[in-house]
């Protein structure tokens, strides 16, 4: 009732003007560019955090240093912080008033990334930060150290142990975290709405496209929304498949 009915209404409304009209909106240059940008930036951010999130999980499980539990705690902050606050937080350091600004002779450097694609990347990195770490951490924790020790005693180097033993075990975790992060990044609104400037063809994302048109051009917004909806369903299918695969291979 709460979920199904609105979604049905959305899909119905998108095709209300007939399929050609739907197709025309979705294939308009601005919509295509926004959807493409959303997909590309989300993939980039999700992939970056898949790599660095795995490293983070490794450090949190295997390394030990003062303040580790504090790091573990603040890692959840992107889940708890309102997204609009994330946008402002990033603007404080990477906005127009940035203190990271060097102008010395021929050297020009500024961390002011507002209204550029770097800003989108930063915001998406922030909001998807914990996903992969949180899916990999428990698997890494449960992982039997003896396997690694056996491999090491048989002469495998650190890298070989990681590649042959650790990595295959945590891969399902990495992939499901990455997929969740991707879904979150494609749909992200609050953190990007202020920092991107929403410049068509340059920094306009599909989600902000929908936000801007929701009340003025609901049918146009609905067309792009249906594309976002399809992406969400695909992501859920992929995650379901990953989960079944992991369960079948005994390391859920």
């Amino acid at each position: 009732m709460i979920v199904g009915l609105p979604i049905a209404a959305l899909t119905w409304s998108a095709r209300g003007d007939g399929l050609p009209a739907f197709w025309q909106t979705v294939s308009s240059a601005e919509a295509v560019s926004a959807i493409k940008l959303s997909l590309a930036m989300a993939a980039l951010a999700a992939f970056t955090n898949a790599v660095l999130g795995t490293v983070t999980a490794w450090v949190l499980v295997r390394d030990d240093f003062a303040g580790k539990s504090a790091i573990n705690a603040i890692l959840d902050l992107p889940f708890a912080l309102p997204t609009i606050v994330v946008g402002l937080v990033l603007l404080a350091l990477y906005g127009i008033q940035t203190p990271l600004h060097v102008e010395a002779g021929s050297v020009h450097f500024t961390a002011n990334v507002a209204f550029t694609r770097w800003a989108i990347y930063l915001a998406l990195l922030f909001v998807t930060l914990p996903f992969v770490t949180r899916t990999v951490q428990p698997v890494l924790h449960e992982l039997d150290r003896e396997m690694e020790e056996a491999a090491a005693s048989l002469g495998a180097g650190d890298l070989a142990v990681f590649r042959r033993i650790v990595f295959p075990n945590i891969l399902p975790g990495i992939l499901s975290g990455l997929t969740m992060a991707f879904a979150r990044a494609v749909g992200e609104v609050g953190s990007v709405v202020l920092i991107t400037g929403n410049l068509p063809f340059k920094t306009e994302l599909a989600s902000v496209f929908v936000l801007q048109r929701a009340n003025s051009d609901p049918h146009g917004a609905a067309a792009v929304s249906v594309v976002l909806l399809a992406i969400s369903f695909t992501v859920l299918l992929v995650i379901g498949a990953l989960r079944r695969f992991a369960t079948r291979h005994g390391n859920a």
Partner: protein
Amino acid sequence: MRRYSLRGIVLGYLLIILAGPLLMMLWRTAQDLGGAWAAISAHDTLRAFELTLIVTAIAVPLNTAFGVACALVVVRSNIRGKGLINAFVDLPLALSPVVVGLSLVLLYGAGGWLGFLGDHGVQVLFAWPAIILATVFVSLPFVAREVVPTLREVGDEQEQAARTLGASGWQTFWRVTLPTIRWAVIYGVILTTARCFGEFGAVAIVSGNIEGKTQTATLRVDDAYQFAYGHYAGAYGISLVLAVMSIVVLFTMMLARPKEGTL
């Protein structure tokens, strides 16, 4: 050596993405405390926080009851369409909040299937019912997702035992099931709360953003920034209040977590 470089990478990355910007916002607010305080204590800001708290107070109990019921159906019962329920519960996690907002506009707006409600004087859109519907939608999955794995793990032997000893369905639920899953429920409630008061995209579309009436705290931050004209302390100040709220949520979460293992 490798161990130190990995640690360095992680700490450096978290500093650039997470800690650095947060500290900078604190610093910016501290530079103009007067401006920040004026924005926080403004009448419309207080009304916005009030609305956010009311909406959260309504949405959290609803989604807690629904989440527990839903988890019970998914894990314990064998009805048809279980997989479908499971998929629908997960949907809000993977769906953009703007899609949620737009769906509500199309459903309750003029010409929508439930648009007739407006003709009969029941104002849904641009009023609190729509804000609550949007918030309930986006925070739907959290309790169910925490409870489902716990229910699976503990099995149903205790519940069966209770039933053979003559306990009714309700008694079994209150005396056996609920105490077993309580930490999962608490954890889910905390996550739901954080999601409710932080919601932006869906609420931005359905609320109409009328100052002092349908403007929530997050929308207030957006407005304060957009109309700051170079004086960002107000927006930073209100953000800081929201940030403190989420840090409180985070701490509660940490307190709830260690007990998870003991069930």
